[in-house]
């Protein structure tokens, strides 16, 4: 084998060089490993749930166990996969490279972030091993503060600790994007992935501390019965819901904004075209981040909240949908008169467009007060958020992993198998979650271990879909790992993409750029050279 040039992977071997690295690219790989682990842990809980739900009776596991399964499924996937996922893996790897920097602003904080993440994860795994938690990932009081006798504090601590990882990542990205852009890289020349990460960082910084204090208060309530959420001693359990959702609603924008950033990059590259309405897409990211802080009460329309509060939250929830719609239209318009190739990343991105659109539209059903009365706390909600989180975020994540895989590892994955897997995921996903909309409207409540007979047919369809979806997720696991050794070696820019990250070798050297690049062209300057040559 010819000598591969020195890159961030082969520059040094050994545990210490990885576990004490300050290189943002290596830290991204550390995150890739831990995030993938939690994805499969959370997914495993889902598999068990869907098998249980094949029959109306609760016959696979006991009720307590089922309650723990759905709680842990939510907790693990939300706090340890969806929220950190794209920023920690792709963001860490790409943010410095996309802006022409050698690293993030605070490399040691970056490494600390990962250790904090792992520590939080360990607390959570401990809680799982010690018997689990059964409060639902939403921890509503007074069940979680007074009644549940499961390991609420351990898991709460896990989420609390991991929150700091999120805060530090957001802080790092914010400062990096503000202060370390290469010469010539003005704000409106930035890739939209960077705009998306920036908006995400705002939410991480402003929102995460509130869930931290909420979990802290919950722990104090459980330990010392201080009385804040306990109605029998004067507290208000609904206050918990307000504090909880003040973070947890913006948290879903932490999940989706980076995904949207990936979609912009992929569509531009594989349509060979600048994203239509660049500034509108950039500002939409900021609008979503800001508006997202004012809609939390739409989770609480039936909590005893006043009708007037409901009106305010409802109208704001409709407003926050608009920038997302604007983005979908802009991405669609980008395809117009493009030169489109259906590579694996593009398949995931186009799948995202369809599924995110459906997910977003069903959000309108929930924002609409009179209808939410009926579908709140039913499988309609479950279907809605899975369309966004799985049909949206996970598809975008997989698309991004495939898009940047050659850059990160210097290897190509097998295209045919990868496209096949993308299609399997798309089909499996729809079969799993579309029936759940119907189940919800029919009245099947969520978090039900056993259900009434008439819901069985749709549940069987959903579980069948889940098995296909699971298979679809296993495939990339296998062929991506395979490609590390046996995939075709990738050059610096196998997609002929624009963007500073593609101007480096694959895999990149530790310092990213031998010389700090100077940027003279707009983002997504596809077709420029051909035009320049022709004209």
């Amino acid at each position: 084998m010819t000598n591969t040039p020195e890159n961030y992977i082969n520059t040094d071997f050994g545990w210490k060089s990885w576990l004490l690295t300050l290189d943002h690219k290596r830290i991204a790989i550390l995150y890739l490993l831990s995030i993938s682990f939690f994805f499969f842990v959370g997914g495993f809980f889902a598999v068990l749930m869907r098998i249980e739900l094949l029959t109306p009776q609760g016959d696979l596991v006991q009720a307590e166990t089922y309650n723990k399964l759905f709680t842990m499924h939510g907790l693990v996937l939300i706090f340890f996969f969806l929220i950190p996922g794209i920023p920690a893996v792709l963001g860490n790897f790409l943010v410095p490279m996309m802006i022409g920097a050698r690293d993030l602003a605070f490399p040691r904080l970056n490494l600390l972030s990962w250790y904090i993440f792992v520590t939080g994860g360990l607390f959570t795994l401990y809680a799982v091993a010690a018997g689990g938690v059964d409060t639902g990932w939403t921890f509503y009081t007074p069940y979680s503060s007074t009644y549940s006798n499961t390991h609420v504090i351990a898991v709460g601590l896990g989420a609390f600790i991991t929150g700091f990882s999120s805060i530090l990542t957001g802080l790092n990205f914010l400062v990096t994007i503000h202060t370390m852009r290469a010469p010539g890289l003005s704000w409106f020349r930035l890739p939209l992935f960077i705009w998306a990460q920036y908006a995400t960082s705002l939410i991480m910084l402003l929102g995460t501390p509130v869930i931290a204090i909420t979990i802290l208060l919950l722990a104090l309530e459980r330990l010392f019965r201080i009385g804040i959420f306990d109605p029998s001693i004067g507290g208000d359990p609904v206050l918990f819901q307000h504090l909880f959702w003040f973070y947890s609603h913006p948290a879903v924008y932490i999940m989706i904004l980076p995904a949207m950033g990936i979609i912009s990059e992929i569509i531009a590259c594989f349509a060979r075209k600048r994203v239509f309405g660049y500034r509108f897409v950039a500002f939409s990211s900021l609008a979503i981040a800001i508006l997202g802080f004012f809609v939390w009460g739409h989770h609480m329309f039936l909590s005893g909240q006043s009708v007037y509060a409901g009106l305010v939250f409802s109208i704001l929830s409709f407003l926050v949908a608009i920038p997302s719609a604007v983005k979908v239209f802009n991405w669609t318009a980008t395809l117009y008169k493009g030169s489109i190739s259906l590579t694996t990343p593009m398949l995931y991105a186009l799948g995202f467009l369809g599924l995110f659109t459906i997910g977003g539209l069903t959000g309108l059903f929930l924002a609409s007060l009179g209808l939410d009365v009926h579908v709140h706390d039913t499988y309609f909600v479950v279907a809605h958020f899975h369309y966004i989180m799985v049909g949206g975020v996970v598809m975008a994540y997989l698309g991004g992993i495939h898009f940047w895989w050659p850059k990160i590892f210097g290897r190509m994955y097998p295209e045919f198998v990868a496209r096949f897997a993308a299609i399997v995921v798309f089909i499996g996903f729809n079969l799993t979650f579309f029936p759940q909309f119907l189940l919800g409207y029919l009245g099947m409540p969520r978090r039900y271990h056993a259900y009434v007979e008439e819901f069985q047919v749709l549940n069987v369809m959903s579980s069948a879909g889940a098995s296909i979806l699971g298979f679809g997720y296993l495939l990339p696991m296998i062929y991506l790992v395979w490609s590390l050794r046996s995939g075709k070696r990738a050059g610096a820019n196998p997609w002929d993409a624009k963007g500073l990250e593609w101007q480096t070798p694959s895999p990149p050297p530790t310092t990213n750029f031998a010389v700090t690049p100077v940027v003279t062209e707009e983002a997504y300057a596809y077709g420029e050279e051909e035009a320049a040559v022709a004209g």
Partner: protein
Amino acid sequence: MWEDLPLFPESASSLSGEVDALYVFLIAVSAFFALLICALVVGFTFKYRRRPGNERASRIEGSLALELAWTLIPLAITMVIFVWGARLYFALSLAPEDCLEIQVIGKQWMWKLQHPQGQREINELHIPLGRPVRLTMTSEDVIHSFFVPAFRTKMDVLPNRYSSVWFEPTRTGRYHLFCAEYCGTKHSEMIGTVHVLEPHEYERWLRGAVAGEAPAEAGRRLYEAQRCDTCHFAGPEARGPVLAGLFGRRVQLADGSTVVVDENHLRESIVAPNARLTAGWQAIMPTYAGLLREEEILQLLAYIKSLPAPEVEPRNGDGR
């Protein structure tokens, strides 16, 4: 198989049709936009696929006109949905006059329901066709939620306070009742049945059902047993406001604000009497938290609500 794949639950209340109408409208809007996007995406992908002759994309920056269009049109549509949903929500929230008042207590993991004439049910609710019913609900422990899909109504049931929901059944039959807020181990077993009967059958059921005491009557006994009238009477030595006719009135509190005396205020006055003191009275009422069960508080409330307003307006607390 298609009979097994219904799309709607039964429609059995005066408002369920309206909820379904909004739902169908939203499905139409969603289907339109989803199909539009899918058609455009698939169409563009096919038409502009990379092939000899289409190696280069056109350079298009954007279009302000399009941006405005696809911002303002969705905005208009969402505002229509908002107004429609809000009006439906008002209708669902504001109970009409003269409802049949049922008291509901949710507890892990059952529903206890009490009719005004004393009949009690567990996990079942028998009601007559065509008469609006209002449930006043509280929880003995954690948060639950009272959900009847066929009526398209739902409301969280909270500890230490009351929430209410109303509906008017329009079809006889048996309908599912589900708890819709996760409440612990047997959450999925906290289910029951609502029986809507023809009025004469309902009367027959009332006569046949085990009738305990009417709540108001039980409340009167409690009122006397707890000696509430030691402080609550009309006269210069009274130590608390007169309760007859108080329900539904607006009173002033010691801190200057005013409040409408509803079920929640009455309940708080019993379990935490000095939290929101009425103006002009001293903070001397002892708390009955822990001394009265939820059923008993509801019975007291039923009694207080049944007291007719006195002819002479008592001077509640000002200048005795």
